[in-house]
């Protein structure tokens, strides 16, 4: 089902029925197989720092950026509130579940606090969406940014629920199936699984009626209304869907760090998600993860490089900023856009009949 494309020429012409069908495995591109094998075997040949810190963090930031990509790429709505939704989900896990800050945390069991965190965060996303979809372009950015800023200051000042400045520590994943999910290898697979799930969901939904309709409201809202679609309702529901993805990312983030504080969803983090999505490219869901990986690698290794050149390691932000500028300047549709153009050029250089390079 997932690989059957109802809009492919074969399917639409009804040809798929008669002709001998390739097995679904044969229809998955080679690149996908290669990626799957690389990701699944990575703990066998990569170090624990790499799989836990670099890859784990990339998957998490990728998921949060993916929720922005879904809204911006398919819905045309640039929301700066996705990191805040992730932060709220993380906070809910800390507030409702057991943590080292026992005076504030409620210590409920995992089967209560995990679903509750996702539902609360998605509901918050829906609410923000209901406010934001009535605005356009720069105003959507401003209203979501204002909400993100308000959330940051609120968590910093509120001690009864959010424990203010210090936040929560020792926020650990439950030891389900007797596994310590914060060990590098289990955490790697957990993050990989969640990221793959979210990625697959976005790819699938993009071609389902809801996703098609969302892209319709992006390109042509007036015609969508004239076809009987409630444009506002579709946009708000897109925020709900994106909210669930961001919430999953937020829960993993709090487990990876084992703590959460106002800075987790502070304004720098909010902007980082935007930078990641733009650098990766918002046209396809892969972009979010590519952007996140680039960001994490720069963030992790640039301090070493900088100190080697005798510069302060605080300057890594300058590197990221310059990279952002370069991408926006040379390829407004991100690394993905660069890659697409390079592929198109490579294909053009081949002989159209034989497929051989000329």
């Amino acid at each position, binding site marked *: 089902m997932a690989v059957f494309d109802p809009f492919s020429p074969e399917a639409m012409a009804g040809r798929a029925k008669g002709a001998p069908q390739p097995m679904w495995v044969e229809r998955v591109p080679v690149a996908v197989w290669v990626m799957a094998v690389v990701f699944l075997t990575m703990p066998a040949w990569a170090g624990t720092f790499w799989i836990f810190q670099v890859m784990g963090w990339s998957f998490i930031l990728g998921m949060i950026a993916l929720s922005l990509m879904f809204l911006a790429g398919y819905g045309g709505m640039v929301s700066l509130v996705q990191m805040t939704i992730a932060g709220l989900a993380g906070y809910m896990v800390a507030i409702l579940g057991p943590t080292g800050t026992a005076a504030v945390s409620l210590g409920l069991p995992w089967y209560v606090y995990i679903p509750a965190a996702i539902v609360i965060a998605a509901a918050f996303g829906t609410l923000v969406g209901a406010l934001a979809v009535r605005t356009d372009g720069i105003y959507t950015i401003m209203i979501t940014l204002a909400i993100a800023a308000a959330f940051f200051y609120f968590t910093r000042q509120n001690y009864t629920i959010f424990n203010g400045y210090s936040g929560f520590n020792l926020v650990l994943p439950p030891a389900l199936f007797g596994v310590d999910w914060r060990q590098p290898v289990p955490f790697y697979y957990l993050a990989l699984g969640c990221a793959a799930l979210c990625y697959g969901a976005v790819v699938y939904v993009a071609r*389902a009626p809801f996703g098609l309709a969302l892209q*319709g409201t992006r390109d042509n809202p007036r015609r969508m209304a004239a076809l009987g679609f409630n444009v506002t309702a579709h946009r708000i529901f897109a925020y709900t869907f994106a909210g669930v993805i961001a919430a999953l990312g937020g829960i993993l983030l709090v487990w990876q760090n084992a703590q959460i504080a106002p800075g987790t969803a502070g304004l720098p983090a909010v902007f980082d998600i935007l930078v990641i999505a733009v650098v990766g490219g918002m046209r396809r869901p892969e972009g979010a993860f590519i952007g996140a990986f680039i960001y994490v690698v720069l963030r992790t290794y640039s301090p070493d490089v900088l100190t080697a050149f005798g510069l302060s390691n605080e300057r890594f932000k300058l590197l990221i900023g310059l990279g952002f500028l370069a991408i926006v300047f040379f390829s407004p549709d991100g690394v993905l856009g660069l890659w697409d153009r390079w592929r198109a050029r490579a294909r053009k250089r081949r002989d159209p009949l034989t497929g051989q390079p000329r």
Partner: protein
Amino acid sequence: MSMADTAAARLGSVSAGNALELRGVTKMFGALAAIADVTMTVRPGERRAVLGSNGAGKTTLFNCITGDFLPTSGTIRLFGEDVTAFPAHERIRRGLRRTYQISLLFTGLTVADNVYLACRGVSRARFSMLRPRRGDPLLIRAGELIEAVHLTPARDRLVSELSYGQQRQLEIALALAGAPRFILFDEPAAGLSPAERRELVAILTGLPTHIGFIIIEHDMDVALRVAESVTMMHNGRVFKEGMPAEIEEDAEVQALYLGDGSHAHG
């Protein structure tokens, strides 16, 4: 006709038996009355042509009927129900459809996706997260609509790659999706070749008889061939109503249409 009447009767007590009923509809753009105090009724299944020179307010009239714009004053009833304050999608779900004078299509999607979206828009499960299966009735229905407007060879092409005439045909397919009861065609023949015009007339005259429509058309040939009644508009007002033959013979109309419109009715 009888079919439409029973359908209208089934709608219940609100139905007054008219497909469309406008009372004193006015739309102001700043100080300009694009349409002023328009009153007209159209029976179910009736086919009406709206004529008028450029800027007469014909498209604005359509925009008010479909809810693209809310009128400044007046009431609009659709199949007996007051829809004046309804958003566009609620009116569409009650069987109203329209085409646009300037094609308003999803240029980044294929013909098949465009028509599928149109079929989805007036079905339930608009929010479905599940992809359609191969035998999905809506996919089959979309295929039939594409066939009906002779676009089957182009079904998998992107709309941006279609010829102008094909885009106009697709506009019509989108308006035929679902179970339309009343359709507004905004200059569907504009820019078409004589052969394409003949095809268009065939599509319009071939519509099931219970589907009424209003067609805006500058080409009298097309308009009078498909319509049973005519409304002439001028400067935002209804200027004349009648049978095609009456309108064709009317001296004032001829002055407006054949001569220079400006001195006919200041």
